[in-house]
């Protein structure tokens, strides 16, 4: 929106566009499938972000994977796919299997941790990882490292004290943090009017003396431009920035709630017309980058890959009860010690 008006360019190559589209398809199919597996009684719990795919893929393409730090939240399935996490790995978490790379079956699904990609472990506690982002970025600055930290969260998180404390601290020290709010209008059942008296989360930036920017989170290219700008500002020492991507979730909050109790169907249907995947497909087809036949073939492939991943992950070994008490503390064995040098 406003960012595009400023004429800032963040070119996306044709191959990259197709990869982005594919990643969105994979995330959507995987997320739908995780809900189905819960409904079938094969998975205890599912939490996903259908509808958020564009901004999430955009974020993954705006950072330097493995260099910049990423603190995502549980909706960020598409961000993780775009960073290279395999559907099988996410499904191992869904089934709480021993080989779940995010937590070894200890956390609920989609509570990401991926040290090699600098994706930092997080809890279920809303906004609790925002101070971690500020601390990581402070360390980057102290150590003179060219690193940006991106932390994502919903608009409900902006009501928490940790949001205020973290944005304030990052602003005081001009830290390279992109605070990315994926505003889908609801924190479980509470509409954003119950969270804040301002219209846009980005409006809050003024109170911290930083730049806030709102973008259409369902427009992949616009979101990518805005996020690339935000990451660039941080890299140029002009951080932090607060970016609000307006979006919508098509799923309930989790597999454990019924969104029909709090969201009118007409609203959901209205947003469905702005489905970020459909919009990007239309764009690609309009550019001649994707034929309907190619699209059909691609979707069939994705469906098949997810089905295979489900079968593989479901058959993987369960956690060993004998390991329950492991890693409460450092065990001094093969553990990879982080921090403290």
């Amino acid at each position, binding site marked *: 929106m406003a960012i595009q008006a400023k004429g800032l360019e963040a070119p996306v190559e044709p191959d990259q566009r197709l990869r982005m589209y594919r990643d969105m398809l994979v995330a959507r199919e995987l997320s739908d499938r995780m809900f189905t597996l819960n409904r079938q009684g094969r998975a205890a719990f599912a939490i996903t972000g259908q509808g958020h795919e564009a901004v999430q893929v955009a974020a993954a393409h705006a950072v330097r994977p493995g260099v910049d*730090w990423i603190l995502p939240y549980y909706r960020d399935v598409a961000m993780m796919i775009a960073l290279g996490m395999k559907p099988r790995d996410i499904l191992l978490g869904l089934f709480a299997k021993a080989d*779940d790379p*995010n*937590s*070894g*079956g*200890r*956390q609920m699904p989609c*509570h990401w*941790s991926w*040290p090699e990609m600098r994706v*930092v*472990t997080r*809890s279920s*506690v809303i906004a*609790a*990882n*925002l*101070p*971690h*982002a*500020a*601390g*990581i*970025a*402070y*360390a*980057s600055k*102290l*150590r003179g*490292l060219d*690193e940006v930290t991106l932390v994502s969260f919903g608009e409900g998180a902006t009501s928490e*004290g*940790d949001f205020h*404390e*973290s944005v*304030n*601290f990052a602003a*005081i020290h001009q830290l390279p943090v992109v605070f990315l709010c994926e505003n889908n209008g609801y924190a479980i059942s509470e509409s954003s009017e119950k969270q804040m008296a301002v219209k846009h989360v980005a409006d809050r930036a003024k109170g911290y003396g930083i730049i806030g920017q709102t973008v259409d989170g369902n427009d992949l290219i616009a979101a990518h431009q805005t996020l690339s700008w935000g990451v660039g500002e941080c890299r140029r020492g002009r951080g932090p920035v607060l970016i609000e991507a307006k979006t919508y979730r098509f799923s309930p909050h989790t597999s454990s709630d019924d969104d029909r109790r709090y969201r009118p169907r007409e609203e959901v249907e209205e947003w469905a017309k702005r489905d970020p995947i459909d919009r990007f497909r239309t764009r690609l087809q309009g550019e001649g980058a994707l034929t309907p036949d190619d699209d059909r073939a691609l979707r069939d492939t994705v469906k098949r890959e997810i089905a295979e991943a489900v079968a593989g992950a479901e058959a993987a070994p369960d956690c060993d009860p004998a390991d329950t008490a*492991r*890693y*409460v*503390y*450092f*065990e001094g064995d093969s*553990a*990879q*010690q*982080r*921090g*403290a*040098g």
Partner: protein
Amino acid sequence: MSTKTYLDAIHDAMWEEMERLPTMVVLGEDIQEGGVFRATDGMLAKFGKDRVLDTPLAESSIVGIAIGMAQNGCVPVAEIQFADFAFPAFNQIISEAAKWRYRSNNAWGCPIVVRMPYGAGIRGGMYHSQSIEALLAHVPGLKVVAPSTPHDAKGMLKAAIRDPDPVVYFEHKKAYRALKDELPDDDYVVPIAPAQVRREGGDLTVISYGFMVHECLQAAEELAGDGVESTVLDLRTLAPLDRTAILDAARRTGKVLIVHEANLTGGIGGEVAAIIAEHAFDDLDAPIRRLAAPDVPAMPFSGAQEDACLPSKETIAAAMRDLAAY
């Protein structure tokens, strides 16, 4: 050797580690001007504002930022100005730091130190006197220490800074200037976990930690004059507890008194008593006794009422005599 107060010991431990570790950061409120107790005195001039960091008045993020720093190669030592103000940071300590390694299946570690000045006896009133250690000792994943001497204060703070896991370091405010030791000039650490026998005697055992250890030692001295010989065990580390030392001390005398200035219910004393009752019941010659503050929400500002809350040399000696006579 040099004569050092408990406060000097804490200051020097941080100073020496700051010299050794170029990415160590001390952070908290009023840190740059030296801290309200002077624990960071002179550090700003020596190490600069980036490593001696004044934070906004926001305890949750003081700990949360420390957690983040630790992920990215820094060695953070966070100060909560008074333990009484730590509660906004409990989410970061309990939900985040304590579970960091466990929830990531050992992919990540959380090597941070959170210093908390605690304890009564300084007329600090309800919100500058609390002993909140039991609340955190309940949380697996944390290490909780409460050194009682300048020697241990220095050695255990260094051990905490070098520890791969989150350590909550309780430093007793009354001890800051009241206690002095001859400390080695060379680098040393006092390992986290082992308790320390401060006095040996065969008639009964007193188990305590923090400043109360000194009240217990004075009471033991007094009873020795009457021919009652006591063992005094200083727990030093409250989580994880040194079960072996606790059971050895209990078995040696068959009579145990546990003393702390935190209130009785749900305190460290209950856990120590349970360990002894569970594993050394047959060696006991008397019921285990606990002496602690009454179950009031916090120490009153009134000196008379604060004194009424705190175990003292006199009340400890009286409890020891009762136990010895059992």
